[in-house]
C-alpha cells in the first residue's frame, strides 16, 4: 500500500460510492444466506461469505479509515494485531478441534 501513500484523498462522491458498494456486498451476503437456506450450498456459503466480509473489512479500513493514504508504518501495526489475533486464536480453536460452526 505504500506506493499509494499520499495519493489524492477521496471526495464525498467517492465515499458515497464506497458506501453503496458496501451496502451491495451486505445485500449479497444476506442473499447468500437465504440461497443456502433454500438450496444447500454444500458448504460453499462459508468461503463466499468470509470472502465478501473480508472485502468489506478492507474497504472500510482502507478508505474510511484512510489507511491506504497513511504511512505504511500504521498498516504494519494494524496488520500485526490482526494477523497475530488470527494465528493465536486459530491455534486455540484448532487445539479444541473446534471449527464446528463451519460444519
Amino acid at each position: 500500500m505504500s506506493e499509494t501513500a499520499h495519493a489524492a484523498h477521496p471526495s464525498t462522491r467517492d465515499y458515497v460510492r464506497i458506501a453503496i458498494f458496501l451496502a451491495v456486498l451486505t445485500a449479497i451476503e444476506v442473499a447468500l444466506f437465504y440461497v443456502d437456506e433454500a438450496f444447500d450450498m454444500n458448504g460453499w456459503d462459508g468461503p463466499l461469505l468470509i470472502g465478501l466480509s473480508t472485502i468489506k473489512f478492507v474497504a472500510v479500513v482502507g478508505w474510511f479509515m484512510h489507511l491506504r493514504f497513511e504511512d505504511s508504518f500504521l498498516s504494519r501495526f494494524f496488520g500485526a494485531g490482526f494477523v497475530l489475533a488470527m494465528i493465536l486464536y486459530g491455534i486455540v480453536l484448532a487445539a479444541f478441534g473446534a471449527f464446528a460452526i463451519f460444519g
Partner: protein
Amino acid sequence: MADTFEIEEGADAPEHDTGDDHHVVHESTGIDNRKLGMWVFLSSEFMFFGAFISNYLLYGNRDFDSVVPRDIYDIPFTSISSFVLLMSSLTMVLAHHALSTGDQNGTKTWLMATALLGSVFLGGQVFEFYEFITVKDMTLTSNPAASAFYMLTGFHGAHVAIGILMLLSLFGITRRQGGLSEKHGMNLELVGLYWHFVDIIWIVIFTIVYLLGAA
C-alpha cells in the same frame, strides 16, 4: 569490536539552533502522537474481540437442550441494523471530510447523523436482547452458547455506546465554540478511527456469528 567504535557520520543534520524550545512535542515518524496511539490501541483491540469471537466459535453449538442463539437469530432484523451501522461509517467519514474542507455546519450535521445511526443500531441490539430473553427464553445463563453470544455482542455494544458518547461530546464542542479547532480536528479523526473500527468488528461478527452461525 572495533566496528562499534565507529561514529556514523554524514546523515545527521548539523546542530541546530535550540534557542526556541517551544515545540516540545515533535514526532520522529511524522505521524501525530495521538493518531499513532489510537492505531496502536486499535491493533490491540483485535486481540480483545478475537478472544470473544473465538469463545463464541467454541461454544456456539453447546445447547444442552436449551435455546441457543443460532436457533433464534432474526436475520432480516440484524441485516438492517448492520446496514445502519455500515452507513454510520459513511456519515462519520463525511463529517471528517467536511471538517477538512472547513465546512463546520456539515461537520455538525454528519456528526449528529453518525450518533443517531449508532443509537439506532444500539437500540436495535437492546430490542434483540429483549426479544431473546423474554420471548425466546434465552438468558445469559441458559447455556455456554448464550453466555458467549451476549458477551460478544454486549461488549461490542458497549464499544458503540462509548463511541456515541465521544461523538456527542465532539458535537457539544462544535456547538460551544462555533467550530472545531485544530486540536479538536484531530480528536474528530481519532473518534472516526475508533468508530470505523467498531464497524469492521461488526462486519466480522455479522458474517461469522449471524450468517454462518445460524442453523
